[in-house]
């Protein structure tokens, strides 16, 4: 199978075959994490910069550890402690990082399209670690990996994404990945956060949570992103929980083999009951483990065959 890309900017432009290449490669890297020596020399001598203009802990740590396990050198760069605070533009910041011969730049930014912008003028490879409400491709890839590992396949599954869809890059990347791999995607949440326009992406939209989860094989819960909402999109957290929260009573009406996912951080007692998050049906911690393997695979693939000096085959 072929991987020709220098960047990973979004899921939208990937083919199903390319997605599966990442998932197959990630399987090999997951095994590395289970050994006594959890490190391979694949990116020896390469430099990975984590350019996190928007704060993030779990994704940054995951990318950092992934790069380290590939023997790359890693620099972490956060907006608070950077020259961006002194008025430098993103373009100049990125150019400066390139001047230090960075090979891969992992960027998280609050503006949609920031990674695509960098990829247009940088020699280095660019990985999108979340851009605004646009995409979060590695999250969708790790979700797909986790589903495939547990269910054996993705094609034909019913995947329900429940929660704040409008402001969620995780939702958009997941919708692309799941539909490309042949799953049937249902979206559910408050009507202010789940506009009908998502039907154009090939999804079903419903506002009845019981109906949304009745046939689901996978229930992917999303956090309410208070930080992204310009105004209150629903009356109260309590009302959200009572109308859309995944409670034991609601879970009892789903298929017994339905599994629960959440990209984290979880708000216990809001979108998910505490006991459900810790139950056998929850894949939440597996997602974290798999995220590391998927990010190793992505860094490995975008570096393979296309080194920083532009050495071709």
């Amino acid at each position, binding site marked *: *199978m*072929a*991987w*020709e890309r220098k960047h990973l900017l979004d899921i939208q432009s990937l083919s199903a075959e390319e997605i599966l290449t990442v998932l*197959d*490669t990630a*399987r*090999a*890297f997951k*095994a*590395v994490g289970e*050994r*006594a*020596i959890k*490190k*391979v*020399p*694949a990116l020896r001598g390469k430099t990975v910069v984590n350019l996190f203009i928007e704060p993030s802990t779990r994704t940054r740590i995951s990318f950092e550890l992934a790069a380290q396990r*590939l023997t790359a050198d890693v620099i972490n760069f956060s907006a608070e402690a950077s020259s961006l605070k002194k008025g430098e533009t993103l373009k100049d910041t990125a150019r400066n990082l390139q001047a230090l011969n960075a090979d891969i730049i992992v960027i998280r930014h609050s503006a949609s399209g920031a990674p695509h912008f960098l990829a247009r003028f940088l020699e280095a490879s660019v990985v999108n670690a979340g851009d605004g409400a646009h995409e979060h491709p590695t999250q969708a890839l790790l979700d797909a990996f986790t589903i495939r590992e547990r269910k054996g396949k993705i094609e034909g599954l019913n995947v329900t994404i429940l929660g704040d869809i409008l402001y969620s890059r995780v939702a958009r990347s997941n919708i692309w990945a799941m539909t490309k791999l042949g799953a049937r995607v249902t979206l559910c949440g408050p009507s202010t956060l789940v506009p009908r326009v998502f039907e154009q992406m090939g999804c079903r939209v419903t506002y009845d949570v019981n109906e949304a989860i009745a046939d689901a094989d996978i229930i992917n819960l999303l956090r309410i992103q208070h930080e992204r909402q310009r105004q209150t999109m629903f009356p109260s957290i309590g009302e959200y929980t009572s109308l859309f929260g995944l409670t034991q009573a609601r879970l009892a009406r789903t298929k017994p083999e339905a599994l629960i996912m959440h990209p984290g951080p979880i708000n216990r007692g809001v979108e998910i009951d505490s006991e459900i998050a810790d139950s056998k049906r929850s894949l939440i911690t597996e997602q974290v483990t798999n995220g590391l393997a998927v990010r190793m695979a992505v860094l*490995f*693939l975008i*570096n*393979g*065959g*296309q*080194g920083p*000096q532009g*050495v071709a*085959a």
Partner: protein
Amino acid sequence: MRRVLTRIAHEIAERNENSGDVVLVGIQRGGVFLARRLASTLTTIWNQPVPIGELDVSMHRDDLDHRASRIDMKPTIIPFDVTGKTVILVDDVLFSGRTTRAALDALNDFGRPQRIQLAVLVDRGHRELPIKADFVGKNVPTAAQERIDVRFEEEGGADGVTLEKA
């Protein structure tokens, strides 16, 4: 191919008297098929099962930047402790020696074998590293630009080795 593999199996048995210490590790992908076949012959000779591992060396290669990006990674499965064992590395074609070097590095991450021996179906020459096979099915002199293609029944079709002129 069957005759050659039977001979290699007997050579391995002759060289390694303490059969309980011997494990086979096939390099993905052809080496894995060969290791399985060698193991079945060795099991008959020694009258005891011979453990088999599978090794993908992509993560340990030194030429990732220079190769065409046809990476098709297979799982690495070493279901035993290699420390203290005699590991027979099995590959289909020995060429530059870089795959073998990567395999030696990869094995290092799993423990410290007592010794490592190398068995290959075809040695086509053009070594770039000081590596030599302990067991060779056939020496095939080639030009550097030529391609050796090894096919296995396990992939569908018949066993065969072909040399494609450049």
